[in-house]
């Protein structure tokens, strides 16, 4: 694919496929037609040059292919009764509808892909495949699952949409809040999979981060003034701004305190901070906004020792009120350790872990070890680092813990 076409593909795929699904009533038909349209474009555009409005060109061609496919299906219906059911589901369409703008189609698609009757893995795969236009191969690579498994996951999800009658519509007001929360969870999960890859050599798979940020932008564009949507986008931008500084050239993890802040992405920080402020001004606070606000406080400190830990503790306190979870309690404890001393932080950390919910959580043991190290309790610190080491499969995190362990041995 040429660079021009690649760009159009990235920008237009979700929008066009969403419209085609509405017209055809079928995910498969829409995807096939758009794929064929891109193939036509590849040869046509090279010859005639890129059209003025590439998106409209592709939509027109793909739309025609959808109509052809429906006609073919209808002809076959006479002989093959099985197809009758699928054909009867297809919604009627009007030719004039085509060139109008349908901002809602992508919104319909998002809610269908993230419908709660689909399992989370299927929601993620379907969102990346249809809205993001990623290939099955790309998604399989990003999530380290065999391609056949992922393909099967997509087939099952589309089948469930069809057979269970999952609607292609924006949900009713009574349920839209919960549904939107599910959409945000899917997007943030994609981001996190890219940001802190749970296994493998590379800590960050930046293409997944970029895709999640793009989806976050789409969500903000489609549903403006939703403070948590803005909060999510801000959070992803602010975390992504540290990407370059987070890993050393040798692939080693660098903690927030040790990062070279001149390598942080200033543009992403500026946009993230602006979004957080805008979101908070709407006065509908939520967990993404609070996490983004915390990230913004970090982003605004030129040096680690200039960090306003008091404000971070206050924000974590608020976050505990909104979503009390052991992981939030752990982060709260870590912030208190910075603001009021390691001893106080360790008390809170032990309290957060008392329920046992964090027992298998790598960061709990790594944070505990860090605090014990700072308090000079070397032996206990080493034990906690060793536990942490056994709980992570990420090479970069393993290296970080190993480095800390080596430092402790030198102290003894």
């Amino acid at each position, binding site marked *: 694919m040429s660079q021009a076409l690649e760009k159009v593909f990235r920008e237009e795929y979700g929008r066009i496929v969403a419209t085609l699904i509405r017209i055809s009533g079928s995910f498969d038909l829409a995807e096939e037609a758009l794929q064929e349209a891109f193939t036509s474009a590849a040869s046509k555009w090279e010859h005639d040059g890129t059209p003025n409005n590439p998106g409209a060109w592709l939509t027109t061609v793909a739309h025609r292919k959808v109509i052809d496919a429906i006609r073919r299906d209808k002809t076959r219906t006479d002989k093959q009764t099985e197809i009758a059911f699928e054909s009867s*589901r297809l919604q009627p369409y009007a030719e004039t509808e085509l060139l109008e703008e349908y901002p809602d189609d992508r919104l319909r698609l998002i809610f269908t892909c993230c419908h709660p009757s689909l399992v989370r893995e299927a929601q993620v795969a379907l969102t990346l495949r249809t809205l993001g236009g990623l290939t099955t191969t790309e998604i399989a690579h990003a999530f380290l699952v065999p391609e056949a498994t992922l393909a099967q996951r997509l087939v099952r999800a589309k089948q469930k949409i069809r057979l269970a009658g*999952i609607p292609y519509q924006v949900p009713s007001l*009574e349920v839209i809040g919960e549904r939107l929360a599910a959409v945000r969870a899917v997007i943030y999960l994609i981001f996190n999979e890219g940001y802190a890859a749970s296994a493998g050599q590379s800590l960050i798979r930046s293409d997944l981060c970029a895709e999640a940020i793009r989806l976050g932008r789409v969500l903000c564009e489609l549903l403006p003034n939703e403070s948590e949507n803005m909060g999510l986008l801000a959070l992803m931008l602010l975390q992504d701004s540290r990407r370059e500084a987070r890993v050393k050239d040798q692939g080693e993890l660098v903690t927030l305190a040790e990062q070279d802040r001149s390598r942080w992405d200033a543009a992403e920080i500026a946009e993230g901070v602006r979004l957080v402020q805008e979101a908070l001004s709407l006065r509908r606070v939520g967990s993404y906004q609070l996490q983004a606000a915390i990230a913004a406080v970090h982003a605004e400190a030129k040096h680690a020792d200039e960090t306003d830990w008091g404000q971070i503790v206050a924000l974590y306190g608020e976050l505990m009120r909104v979503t009390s979870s052991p992981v939030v309690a752990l982060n709260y404890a870590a912030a208190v350790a910075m603001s009021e001393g390691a001893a106080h932080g360790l008390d809170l950390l032990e309290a957060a872990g008392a329920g046992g919910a964090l027992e298998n959580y790598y960061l709990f043991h790594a944070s505990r070890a860090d605090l014990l190290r700072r308090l000079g309790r070397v032996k206990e610190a080493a034990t906690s680092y060793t536990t942490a080491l056994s709980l992570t499969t990420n090479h970069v995190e393993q290296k970080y813990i190993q480095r800390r362990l080596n430092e402790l041995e030198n102290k003894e």
Partner: protein
Amino acid sequence: MKYMLLIYHDEPSWAALSEAERQQVYLEFRKLRADLVASDQFVTGSQLQPISTATTVRVRDGKELVTDGPFAETHEQLGGYFLIEAKNLDEATAIAARIPSARTGSIEVRPLVETVAEATA
């Protein structure tokens, strides 16, 4: 589309309700049924006798095997069902959420396999 709403509940807790409490639940069921009839979404539905009345039939190697009790011991028991007509899954789950037992038990929503004859009619 047609959806079967299978109503699962905990039989012992149902049995433990007072007569007045039970009548209150029945009242809610009758109200829901009347609403569904009025909106043309009601196909059929019924409460089932408790699992103690259940009989299981299997045919193996051509031999009929009739045994006592439900097929499998589960945490919740099938206590009744509604067969409804709904535009899509969201409409079906919204109706399922109005079944009183949804508050204490759970409702399994299953689309019916639609026959070609029905779909093209």
